[in-house]
């Protein structure tokens, strides 16, 4: 019918409208959300586009993307998911970059003296870590435990580093291997945590993927990798990557 055909022809236009470069949809892993908000708040004038932030577990966000979620940029908490997306979608070179490197800490609330490596070696109580199978912080924690000579603490695995933190915070676990960004964010007394040196585990590299390239996305990524942004990121408890490109 005449009118129906016009309707069908008009449909793509509707979609085009939704994908307007005006609003940038950014999917961010939960643990980086707070830092991202700080970054955006710091330079309100620099970013000329509207930003919509969607946060969640890296895995969930990944699954949504695979099933068609219209995110423009994905800030993951690991390398693995961005790698998968890169391969699956044959993204142009430079779409994937490291933006932060997570730092592991051993946190023992209420410690009477500065927490250090020795505490972990002697610890026998409940030690909370993230699930190594699904979270890079967990994998790092496991790696640390293997390298150190520990007295077999009781490993309690949270679904992610946030839950590991929760276990320690409520007192159910007397210690935990959690993220530096968490203890900084919660203003935990530095005496009660030990910043685990890099050599004990693979870097917890957090990568971003640009799924939908546009002037807006380029502007955003450039900002993220700029010096002011890197300052904010490192003061939030991460290290910043030296190089900007990743294969």
């Amino acid at each position, binding site marked *: 019918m005449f009118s129906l055909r016009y309707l069908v022809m008009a449909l793509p236009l509707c979609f085009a409208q939704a994908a307007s470069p005006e609003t940038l949809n950014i999917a961010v892993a939960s643990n980086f959300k707070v830092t991202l908000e700080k970054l955006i708040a710091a330079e309100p004038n620099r970013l000329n586009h509207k930003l919509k932030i969607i946060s969640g*577990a890296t*895995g969930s966000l990944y699954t949504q993307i695979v099933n068609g979620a219209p995110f423009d940029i994905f800030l993951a908490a690991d390398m693995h998911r961005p790698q998968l997306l890169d391969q699956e979608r044959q993204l142009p070179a430079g779409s994937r970059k490291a933006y932060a490197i997570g730092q592991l800490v051993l946190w023992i609330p209420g410690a009477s003296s500065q927490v250090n490596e020795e505490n972990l070696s002697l610890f026998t109580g*409940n030690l*909370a870590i993230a*699930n190594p*199978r*699904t979270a890079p912080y967990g994998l790092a924690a496991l790696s640390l435990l293997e390298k150190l000579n520990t007295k077999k603490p*009781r*490993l*309690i*695995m*949270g*679904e992610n580093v946030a839950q590991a933190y*929760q*276990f320690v915070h*409520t*007192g*159910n*676990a007397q210690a935990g291997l959690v993220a530096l960004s968490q203890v900084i964010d919660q203003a935990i007394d530095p005496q009660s945590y030990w910043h685990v040196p890099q050599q004990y585990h693979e870097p917890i590299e957090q990568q971003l993927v640009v799924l939908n390239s546009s002037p807006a996305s380029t502007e955003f990524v450039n900002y993220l990798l700029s010096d002011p942004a890197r300052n904010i990121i490192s003061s939030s408890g991460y290290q910043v990557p030296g190089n900007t490109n990743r294969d």
Partner: protein
Amino acid sequence: MIDPDLISLAITLKLAAITTVILFVLGTPLAWWLARTDHVSRVLIEPLVALPIVLPPTVLGFYFLILFSPNNPIGQFWYSLTGHTLSFSFSGLVVGSVIYSLPFYVQPLQVAFESVKQEFLDAAATLGAGPLDRFFNIVAPMSRRGFVVAGTLAFAHTVGEFGIVLMIGGNIPDETRVLSIALYDHVESLQYDKAHLLAGGLLIFSFLLLFVVYYLNRRWQTDHTAAH
């Protein structure tokens, strides 16, 4: 090395069975009291019992996490008694499951008890049957169906428990890693074939269980309808 999923299956069944038995012992008198009492406290107790039906399991799990912590009285008590935290232990799961599945046991049983006509209990009393005698020889046999439905629902509900275990289980492979958590892990780590296996298995199991219960229910419908 045994397939970890089989261990999870064993933990799940053990948890459901122990929870159901505990509910049988604790929930039966509660259901009976609720069915029969005129006491004013019933107004409070009934909605309390029903609470786990409406509350998101994560809310319950969250409060359990706080309650079980050695920093708080209950957790402290358990810790001093056993040397272990109540959280991240099978016992902790049992406590959580009993509360989580409580209304699923109590409510159908309460309905069954309420349908036992007072006249039968009166007749039994005049024949010399005291309160316990009346319960075991009149109420219980006449509420047979209610017991089956209550027990089955409590069992099946515990098998499917996820939110609470996620909050307080700690995913310990031979102690608190129940099937629903294992399933979740498989999905999270993109092992979809294993996930399908577990999910499909749970689905079939639950369906079969309910099928049997509803079938029995229908068959027993014909008993006890007429009475003199």
